[in-house]
């Protein structure tokens, strides 16, 4: 027998190994486990300290994040995997007359090229199926994809995209939602009106309320388009196997919806589509529906290899959904002491080229438009309008932040004009326990009054300079 150890020690494996440090970290104690919860379901009583509220907790996935071990889509690779790039229209409104992909297809390293006419069902969307995977033949905003390329390297794919030539017949375009609402405006989804969803919330009689008011205030507020800018761009890998089954790894929040959309656009039975939701490097509402996935699937089918697509930061800005810009018109009737008797609100949402989650955003914005205030007479109406701009969709709050900015700014204006303290005018109007909202929902656990008072105490509202 020699003294030579029979098994490889960690030191022997580790010499010269790039994983040395991080492998060692595997032997660390696991991240702190969450506090044990009782087996009996806990029904918290009002005012009772529960085991969850106020406790410091750690995210169970933080350990991997901090070690750089979390595998996001772009960290996955499969043998023979190709890289996809998209040709963007670069024109806001046009008809595609001809697409010439021959120069791209002739490039060494290019394994597949795809255009809109090859997509079995070229439309998708969570509410209306009005968005094409690749525009064909109508381009409705400059970020519309018109062709996709899969090549052995990203660089070759990007070069091939440059070699695709598209002849466009420019069409009229409309960028302002108020202009797009007019009857004679260019119809972006002809023959349908550009007003593609509306909602009205009515309570009491606003005209009567305004007639009884001592004073009436009007205000117009606008917000801008906002991109989610997740640090991780939209990314997916599609593999269409030889058995006709599709596997997609995607950074999508709603994987069941995405699976249904994939099956629909690709005309596949749903049991042939397997969707693997991976770690998401930031969603914020922007990754709630499919985008490039059907195109990647078809490129994979054509090339017989897995295909990865990662949006460039530019794609992310021009071709993913954004937050709706709002135009908000408020009219409020108040008594001399600042009590609100009537409020009418008109919201115009700039929806961009496609619906996405607009109908949801519109609904929530309209329901919340009059604010957390007891008002007997309310009329809120909201309309979302197609324009030839990047499409808008879900983003944190679904329309609530926009109307909040408007009704709170409006409240400040009213308080100033009436010479009432901005905190006081809110306390005179806010919801209480059991208040019914403008849609008739009776509200419970209402602590807005206490919250306002606490906040004012904490930041020294009374002693502000």
């Amino acid at each position, binding site marked *: 027998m020699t003294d030579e150890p029979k098994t490889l020690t960690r030191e022997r494996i580790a010499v010269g190994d*790039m994983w040395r440090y991080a492998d060692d970290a595997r032997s660390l104690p696991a991240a*702190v486990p969450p506090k044990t919860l009782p087996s009996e379901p806990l029904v918290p009583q009002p005012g009772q300290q529960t085991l969850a509220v106020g406790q410091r907790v750690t995210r169970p996935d933080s350990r991997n*994040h901090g070690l*750089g071990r979390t595998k996001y889509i772009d*960290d996955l690779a499969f043998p023979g995997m190709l890289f996809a790039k998209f040709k963007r229209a670069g024109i806001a409104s046009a008809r595609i007359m001809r697409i010439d992909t021959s120069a791209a297809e002739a490039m060494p390293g290019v394994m597949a090229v795809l255009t809109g006419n090859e997509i079995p069902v070229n439309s998708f969307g969570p509410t209306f199926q009005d968005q094409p995977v690749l525009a064909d033949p109508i381009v409705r905003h400059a970020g519309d994809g018109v062709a996709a390329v899969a090549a052995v390297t990203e660089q070759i794919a990007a070069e091939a995209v440059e070699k695709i030539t598209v002849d466009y017949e420019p069409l009229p375009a409309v960028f302002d939602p108020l202009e797009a609402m007019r009857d004679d405006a260019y119809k972006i989804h002809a023959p349908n009106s550009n007003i593609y969803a509306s909602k009205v919330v009515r309570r009491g009689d606003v005209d009567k309320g305004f007639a009884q008011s001592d004073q009436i205030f009007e205000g117009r507020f606008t917000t801008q388009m906002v991109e989610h800018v997740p*640090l991780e761009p939209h990314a997916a890998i599609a593999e269409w196997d030889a058995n006709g089954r599709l596997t997609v790894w995607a950074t999508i929040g709603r994987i069941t919806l995405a699976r249904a959309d994939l099956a629909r656009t690709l005309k596949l039975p749903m049991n042939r589509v397997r969707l693997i939701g991976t770690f998401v490097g930031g969603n914020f509402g922007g990754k709630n529906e499919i985008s490039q996935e059907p195109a990647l699937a078809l490129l994979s089918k054509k090339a017989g290899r897995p295909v990865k697509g990662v949006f460039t930061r530019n794609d992310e800005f021009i071709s993913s959904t954004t937050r709706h810009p709002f135009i908000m018109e408020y009219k409020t009737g108040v008594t001399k002491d600042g009590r609100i008797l009537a409020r009418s609100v008109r919201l115009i949402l700039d929806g961009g080229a496609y619906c996405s989650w607009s109908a949801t955003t519109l609904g929530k914005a309209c329901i919340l438009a009059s604010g957390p205030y007891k008002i007997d007479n309310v009329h809120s109406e909201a309309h979302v309008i197609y324009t030839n701009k990047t499409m808008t969709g879900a983003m944190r709050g679904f329309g609530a932040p926009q109307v909040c900015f408007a009704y709170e700014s409006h409240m400040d204006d009213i308080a100033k004009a009436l010479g009432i303290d901005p905190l006081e005018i809110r306390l005179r109007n806010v919801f209480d326990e059991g208040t019914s909202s403008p849609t008739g929902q009776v509200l419970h656990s209402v602590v807005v009054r206490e919250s306002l008072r606490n906040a004012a105490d904490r930041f020294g509202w009374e002693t502000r300079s």
Partner: protein
Amino acid sequence: MTDVTITVNGSVRSASVPPETTLLKLLRDVFQLTGTKLGCDVGDCGACTVLVDGMAVNACLMLAAQADGRQVLTIEGLAMKDRLHPLQKVFEESGALQCGFCGPGMLLSAKALLDDNPDPSSHDIRDALAGNLCRCTGYSKIVEAVQDAARAMRDPRTEDTRQLEMHGHD
């Protein structure tokens, strides 16, 4: 093709790559060190931050050839032999990592700061992390975490106590 030899996380590694290859591509695609992230590819977001000779750089803006002969530290090399780096530990405990995508770059920028300045003010931290964007946390937890880590690193005793508090109860 360009021959590049760099010391990554203590190991000498060589590769022959096209001259336009960035350090980020070299690390991710050739060396499979995917902890370093690609966020914007134009040097704005800092997700690709690595330390080159101790200095925080955007790996997407540095050519692999420019790193030839240098020492590169990526997130895979930040944990110690038997424990996490104090920054990793504090980030984990304090919720400074949410989706985690900015984490590797954020941690390495913070390490470069603390190596240089063991007692940074909140302003110093914000300044040092100005090139690292995060969309989840709102930055306040990150700044607090770097301060906590700095405190722990200045006083190893505190560090041991914390270790006990965190892991000693199971």
